[in-house]
């Protein structure tokens, strides 16, 4: 079980980091999601791996699963869920306003961001862009 859990965490992290280093918003979001899965598993295993143990200490019981990491994971899931929804919306808005999902900051000079779309991005999304 240790091998399974640890390699799952490792693979999820590797996939997450690889996707996160891409230059477009969608792979980055996927990468962050993979990373948050990896972290959830990791936090969970920080309470040590146990099977068939109650998540509460009972007098006389020999083993019990540590409930604290489970509470932490729950909190982390809620937060990362909210954050993922938010970043998806922001990426969509950015894509719709600039016509490109490149993460390059092309028009940083335009402070208010009112007139940046004509700076150097095409007006309409190009289909070939997303391959």
């Amino acid at each position, binding site marked *: 079980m240790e091998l399974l859990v640890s390699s799952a965490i490792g693979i999820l992290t590797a996939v997450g980091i690889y996707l996160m280093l891409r230059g477009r918003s969608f792979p980055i979001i996927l990468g962050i999601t993979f990373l*948050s899965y990896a972290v959830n598993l*990791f936090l969970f295993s920080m309470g040590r791996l146990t099977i068939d143990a109650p998540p509460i200490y009972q*007098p006389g019981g020999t083993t019990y699963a540590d409930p604290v990491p489970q509470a932490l994971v729950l909190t982390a899931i809620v937060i990362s869920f909210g954050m993922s929804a938010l970043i998806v919306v922001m990426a969509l808005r950015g894509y719709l306003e600039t016509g490109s999902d490149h993460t390059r*900051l092309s028009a*940083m000079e335009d*402070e208010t*961001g009112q007139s940046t779309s004509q700076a150097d991005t095409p007006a309409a999304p190009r289909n070939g862009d997303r391959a």
Partner: protein
Amino acid sequence: MNNLVIAPILLPALTAAFIILALRGSLRTQRTVSIVATVLLLLIDIGLLALVATEGPQVYQLGDWPMPFGIVLVLDQLSATMLVLAGVLGLAVVIYASAGSDRKGRLFHPLFQFQLLGINGSFLTGDIFNLFVFFEVMLIASYGLMVHGGGAGRLKAGFHYVAINLVASTLFLIAVGLIYGSTGTLNMADLAVRVPQIGINDPGFLKAGALLLFVVFATKAALVPLHWWLPATYASTSAPAAAIFMMLTKVGAYAILRVYGMIFGAEAGALALVAAPYVLPAAVITLIFGTIGVIGSRTLKSVAAFAVVASMGTLLMALGLFDTVGVAAALYYLVHSTLAGAALFLIAGMVVEGRPHTLDRLEPDMAMRAERLVAGLFFIAALGMVGLPPLSGFLGKVMILDATRTVPSWAILWGVILVTSLVLTYGLTRAGTTLFWSSAPPPDKWPEPKPKLVQPVLSISFLLAVLVAWTIGAGPATTWLERTAQQTLDRATYVEVVLGQNPAPPAKQD
């Protein structure tokens, strides 16, 4: 237990919820409620400061759960000082925003109140995981404020900001997991007890957690090489948002001080001062990078943003000494640089409003309305930011120079601080002369709508007045901050205050 301790968290939370639920229609009422709540918050913060000064550190057990099992809020001198600073900054920003920048998007005031909630919570909490939660509250509000007003450039920069912070949050969770996995606790006082014991046997696991956590805080504090998000974010967001974001970097510095000055501080056994070797060199490079950025900037906001990076470098140089003199100097400079940086961002906002064609780009344009007044405010704020006499930036830098005398490589630190100050002076002078001294004569008739002057000038003058007060009151302030530094670095007192009066009861036997 004094119930006032939780007020800085409850008040913004309730205000934000109240505005969203009851006042969505009327911006004017929203402004009034938001300003009144922020004034009230500042008064509460000052009350808490007085409480700490007279009665010592306060502990508040949430839900009355016994320590170290429940989450606890700890109010000591450091937290109280930071709370007051956040309150002052918040008041200035909310007044500035009421001039009309809160009209450019929806729900500015609730987001702003949630921002204050997250900041206050981060300063008050005595639990590492709760710190994570308050970081997230703070960040989620800052995401909203960051893209407030919209626009493509801002959204793109906002995406970067969110993505970087999500990665940092992920690292935070991994670090929390590692620390919990090796110590079995997340309460800061309990950690302070256990870290020295565990460090001797198996420091590797815990050290990895500690250093990962440092990476997270360094990202928040914009320490090189993790500072790249800051200039883009601060330069592309609106002026009031950038001004309140000044507090976010300070939360990073606060967390570094709390965790690496106390929990992994000088008496942490095998892990004593685990982050100290990295803070000082990184801070030096941060200062140099920030300064180069200032002279390379093409907009006033970008100048201000890089000046903030530079000031974080200066601050962490002193903080990284982790001794009483260094931390006191760092805290004095922290308060100063927060006020001066925020004033600079708000002035940049006035420049943007006043010059509809060139905005805050460093190019000559027609004179803006009340240009001399804005130029005068800029002059004072720039003096403060650079650290020239007579303002507190100068005193802060002298204290930092004095504190670094004990370091073997003091000559390098002195050289870097002094040379960068000179270059910063050049950078801000260049910005000021281009913006205010090269203007064409003003038009006969101002274009409509005229930008409002009263609230921005009021808010910036308030910040600068506090800055002047901080300079005049430097004597009492440093005495207070020295005691604060002593208390912050003192592991035994912290543990006694938090755990001492309330030892963990044995597990109940049913």
